């Protein structure tokens, strides 16, 4: 039946109505909940955002991007790069015409994302527009940001730094570095801060996966994702606990949903029914923070039924018997129901699913890490997987999804307060190792520090920098309070206690933001606070940094693969790359020459910039511990040019040679996932799945690390006889490799003379020839870090067997009485840190009555991190225009709140946030949820006037962290953001 336009209407009815009827009926069944008004509302009509984007003829705005017409008639170049948002690492082909980024194309060849992108990745080209970017250096003058020259900015900032260094010592400056720096920049920043004479540096990993790294590394060796997103295609069951992958790592769902179609079962455990839960075969709602009871409840059932992998535990795990004893006694299904809210039959169902489907993997993110007991929660997940024998297997493992695009790399080689690059730590041996790598005298570096003691003392963490400013001087474990802070590629609204952060910002002598965007720091600093807090000598500067599309360099994805980004465009406006800024600032501070000792300098816009390739080569020569030595720039670039040769399920190359260099891919895994041991000449293929004994060490195989001694309590800590990686000449457990062991084994003479000279007296981490490693691995199939058992009992942690403890701010005083928190700590990462005092006071003050709702926060797919970058992208900003809080219908009804109304969210800190209410059943009656990506509004006020003119994000909203509370992990000082309390009322 055709819908033809008829000139007369007489026959129209008979012809048209049946079709229309069918259409209407079909519609009402298919789309019951969305009407056209809903479409239009979502499209932003009627929301006055002040964007002049409406032209009646819909002709493209002239001049927006345009030095060029963008019609493909000019000189075209295709640059291959990688998305800079999350840690999946989706490759992108950026099409550039006459230096302008005009198109972006998907890279189907990439084995990691197969061309797929989420909203953020598909919107990357907007970085080439940069309309709302910070364009030039600026200084805060009388409450407004004024433009200054780079020369002035660098002169004034360095003068102030030198003055502070003299009067208050180098520890008075805090350097907040970035997980969005590439590996070369992150590594250079660690060197920079070391030369400044301090360990007071940190980055986003602290507030993201620091507890993971500590907990996992202390369990079996390395604190990283053991398998990969791709490898999840080989899983038969996947347990997501504390991960909203559909919004935080959308492209990872490509692999998961593919696996589901091949029979994998998906279980999602979350206080909230997330978009990830919508795809689950089984959804479990738990009370926020009760992960340990849940995991140990599963373990209880597993042990009770004898479902654990006994041989695996015997051969490869220490202390499981003690865990079993405790779990069987303590975590009965009733105890679990009481603490988590999970019913016994659902607990049994999940345990059965894990038992019946092998191999199984576990995924976690912030839901597990951001608690005072984060280090214990992640270990409970590790213990569960060890009991099931799932670690070290394809399709198994603990797949920890890291956050930012290079948080893994920044953690591995970047600005950590407690270690030099490569987790070498801060002991004298580590400093000497890097002094050699950096080409400077150890004594010179030593002299830069306030004292040798400060040189080996871990610095303050980014989660507590405010206390470094606000706390009483006699209680801080360093000479001076913090007087200056650099926010170098980091947002402020992702850290808790926003009210106090504002006070700390006001008290500083110097605040410098180095970022492509002004970031919320600029607005927070400029906005008036308490008069008595404002330091009259405070100087605030904004320095425009270039994005990762304006430089080249490598980044490490969550699965430990390194990908090399090509430079897409020259730095926009007056921005400069981070490594150029580091060099220029270092020159003014007097250590420029030392900083770039081993690097060639290239000219960018007429100025010197250290070559990223040379920085990576320096990393290759020094970071032996985690195998960052084999990933030379040449190998990485060859991989990026030939992504199609790598298999999607295994990441292994199918063979072939690179046309440009003749490089042979045989055996390589994509991106040479670390550890890629030995020199590039050794051609180690990288390790796709960690601890996998089914493979030879030269094929990426391994075993658990010998890092905790040879025996404990009379029990063997090394692996049992017969448990080793494939083809290893030593078939028992063995300690880590050093010159003594090599000699004892009679393999020393397999080294060349040149290698012997460098290896004498060294171990595998300090042998700069890489020769010992070569002999051990290639000639004898043994693993340089030894072959030992994983620890289910970590005796050096506050709770050797993970214990459930209630959060500092909670709604269940009865639970807090049963499972109280830790004792206070006097000097923890240089600061007094409270636990018991806070929890007890909250209960005594009946905080749970005034603030009876659990406040938790999380991610949205459209935005990333602090959000100023993504909220400045119109294509993304249009999709989420309001900060909001999710409230359960009953909770809302009790307060007279209707969907879409404005409400005040109040927290025990006294903060009040004005946000929109989204009434939904995603959250249960006792919990509310806010996305954390917003900033630019402060307790009801729009902060627009405090941003530099023309450089404010399009969408501004309340930052949930303005209202969040005190609480820190007992090992890493991770902030307790996933569970605090609040109340909500109609505005």
């Amino acid at each position, binding site marked *: 039946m*055709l819908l*033809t336009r008829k000139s007369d209407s007489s026959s129209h009815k008979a012809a048209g109505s049946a079709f229309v009827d069918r259409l209407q009926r079909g519609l009402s069944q298919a789309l019951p909940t969305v009407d056209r008004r809903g479409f239009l509302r979502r499209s932003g009509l009627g929301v006055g955002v002040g964007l002049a984007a409406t032209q009646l003829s819909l002709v493209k705005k002239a001049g927006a991007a345009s030095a060029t017409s963008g*019609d*493909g*008639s*000019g000189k*075209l170049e295709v640059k291959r790069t990688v998305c800079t948002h999350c840690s999946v690492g989706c490759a992108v082909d950026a*099409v550039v*015409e006459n230096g302008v980024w005009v*198109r972006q194309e*998907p890279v*189907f060849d990439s084995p990691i994302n*197969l*061309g797929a992108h989420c909203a953020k990745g598909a919107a990357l080209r907007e970085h080439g527009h940069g309309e709302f970017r910070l364009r030039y250096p600026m200084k805060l003058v009388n409450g407004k940001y004024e433009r200054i020259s780079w020369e002035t900015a660098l002169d004034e900032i360095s003068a102030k730094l030198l003055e502070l260094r003299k009067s208050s010592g180098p520890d008075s400056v805090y350097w907040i570095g970035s997980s969005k720096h590439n590996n070369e920049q992150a590594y250079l920043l660690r060197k920079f801060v070391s030369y400044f004479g301090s360990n007071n540096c940190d980055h986003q990993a602290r507030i993201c996966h620091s507890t993971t790294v500590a907990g996992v590394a202390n369990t079996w060796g390395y604190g990283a994702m053991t398998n990969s997103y*791709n490898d999840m*295609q080989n899983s038969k069951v996947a347990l997501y606990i504390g991960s909203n992958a559909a919004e935080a790592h959308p492209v990872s769902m*490509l692999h998961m949903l*593919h696996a589901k*179609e091949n029979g994998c079962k998906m279980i999602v455990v979350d206080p909230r029914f997330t978009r990830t839960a919508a795809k689950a075969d089984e959804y479990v709602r738990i009370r926020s923070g009760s992960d340990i009871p849940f995991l140990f409840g599963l373990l209880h059932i597993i042990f009770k039924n004898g479902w654990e992998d006994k041989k695996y535990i015997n051969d490869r795990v220490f202390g499981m018997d003690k865990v079993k004893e405790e779990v069987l006694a303590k975590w009965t299904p009733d105890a679990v129901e009481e603490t988590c809210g999970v019913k016994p039959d659902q607990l049994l169902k999940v345990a059965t699913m894990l038992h019946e489907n092998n191999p199984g993997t576990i995924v976690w993110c912030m839901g597990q890490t951001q608690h005072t007991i984060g280090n214990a929660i992640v270990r409970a997940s590790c213990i569960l997987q060890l009991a099931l024998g799932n670690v070290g297997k394809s399709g198994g493992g603990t797949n920890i999804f890291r956050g930012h695009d290079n948080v893994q790399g920044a953690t591995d080689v970047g600005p950590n307060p407690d270690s030099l690059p490569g987790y070498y730590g801060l002991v004298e041996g580590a400093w000497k190792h890097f002094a050699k790598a950096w080409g400077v005298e150890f004594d010179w570096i030593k002299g830069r520090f306030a004292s040798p003691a400060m040189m080996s003392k871990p610095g303050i963490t980014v989660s507590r920098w405010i206390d470094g400013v606000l706390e009483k001087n006699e209680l801080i474990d360093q000479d001076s309070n913090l007087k200056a802070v650099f926010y170098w590629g980091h947002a402020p609204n992702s850290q808790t206690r926003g009210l106090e952060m504002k006070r700390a910002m006001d008290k500083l002598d110097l605040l410098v933001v180095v970022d492509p965007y002004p970031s919320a720091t600029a607005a927070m600093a400029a906005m008036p606070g308490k008069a008595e807090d404002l330091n009259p000598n405070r100087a605030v500067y904004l320095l425009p940094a270039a994005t990762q599309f304006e430089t080249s360099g490598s980044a490490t994805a969550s699965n430990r693969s390194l990908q090399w980004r090509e430079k897409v465009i020259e730095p926009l406006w007056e921005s400069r790359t981070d490594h150029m800024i580091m060099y220029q600032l270092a020159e003014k501070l007097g250590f420029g020459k030392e900083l770039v000792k081993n690097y060639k300098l290239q000219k960018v816009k007429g100025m010197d910039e250290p070559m990223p390739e040379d920085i990576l080569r320096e990393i290759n020569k020094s970071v032996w511990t985690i195998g960052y030595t084999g990933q030379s720039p040449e190998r990485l670039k060859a991989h990026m040019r030939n992504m199609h040769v790598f*298999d*999607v*399920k295994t990441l292994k190359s199918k063979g072939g040679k690179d046309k440009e260099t003749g490089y042979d891919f045989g055996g390589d895994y994509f991106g040479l996932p670390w550890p890629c041991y030995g020199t590039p000449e050794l051609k180690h293929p990288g390790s796709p799945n960690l601890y996998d004994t089914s493979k030879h060490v030269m094929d990426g195989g391994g075993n658990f690390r010998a890092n905790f001694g040879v025996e404990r309590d009379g029990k063997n800590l090394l692996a049992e006889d017969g448990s080793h990686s494939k083809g290893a000449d030593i078939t028992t457990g063995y300690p880590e490799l050093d010159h003594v062991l090599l000699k004892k084994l009679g393999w020393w003479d397999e080294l060349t003379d040149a290698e012997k000279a460098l290896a004498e007296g060294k171990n595998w981490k300090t042998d700069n020839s890489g020769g010992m490693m070569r002999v051990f691995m290639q000639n004898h199939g043994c693993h340089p870090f030894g072959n030992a058992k994983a620890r289910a009992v970590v005796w050096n942690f506050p709770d050797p067997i993970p214990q459930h403890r209630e959060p500092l701010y909670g709604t269940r005083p009865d639970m807090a009485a049963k499972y109280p928190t830790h004792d206070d700590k006097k000097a923890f990462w240089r600061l007094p840190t409270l636990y018991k005092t806070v929890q007890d006071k909250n209960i005594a003050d009946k905080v749970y009555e005034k603030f009876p709702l659990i406040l938790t926060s999380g991610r949205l797919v459209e935005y990333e991190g602090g959000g100023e970058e993504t909220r400045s992208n119109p294509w993304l900003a249009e999709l989420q225009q309001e900060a909001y809080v999710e409230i359960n219908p009953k909770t809302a009804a009790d307060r007279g709140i209707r969907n879409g109304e404005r409400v005040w969210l109040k927290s025990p800190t006294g903060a009040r946030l004005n946000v929109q209410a989204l009434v939904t059943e995603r959250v249960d009656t006792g919990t509310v949820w806010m996305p954390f990506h917003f900033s630019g509004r402060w307790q009801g006020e729009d902060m627009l006037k405090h941003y530099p003119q023309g450089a404010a994000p399009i969408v501004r909203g309340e930052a949930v962290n303005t209202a969040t509370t005190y609480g820190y992990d007992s090992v890493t000082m991770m902030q307790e953001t996933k569970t605090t309390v609040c109340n909500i009322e109609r505005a």
Partner: protein
Amino acid sequence: MMQRISLILLSVAALTACGEKAQTLGTKNDATAFSGASNAFVAPGWQAGDKNSWEQHLRARGQYGMNDHSRAP
């Protein structure tokens, strides 16, 4: 009545696909997609102007780009 029938028959004859009424614009003519584009963005691997070549190319691209089961069985 006769007019209507002949009109319908004519329409049927003019159909290029079942159940669809062909419609062309008044004054302008839009070039076919397979005739290619006059810019440098064109993907390699097919012949502009050759309909079959274009169709085959798109089919292959569709399978490679959208069928993850063929990339990872």
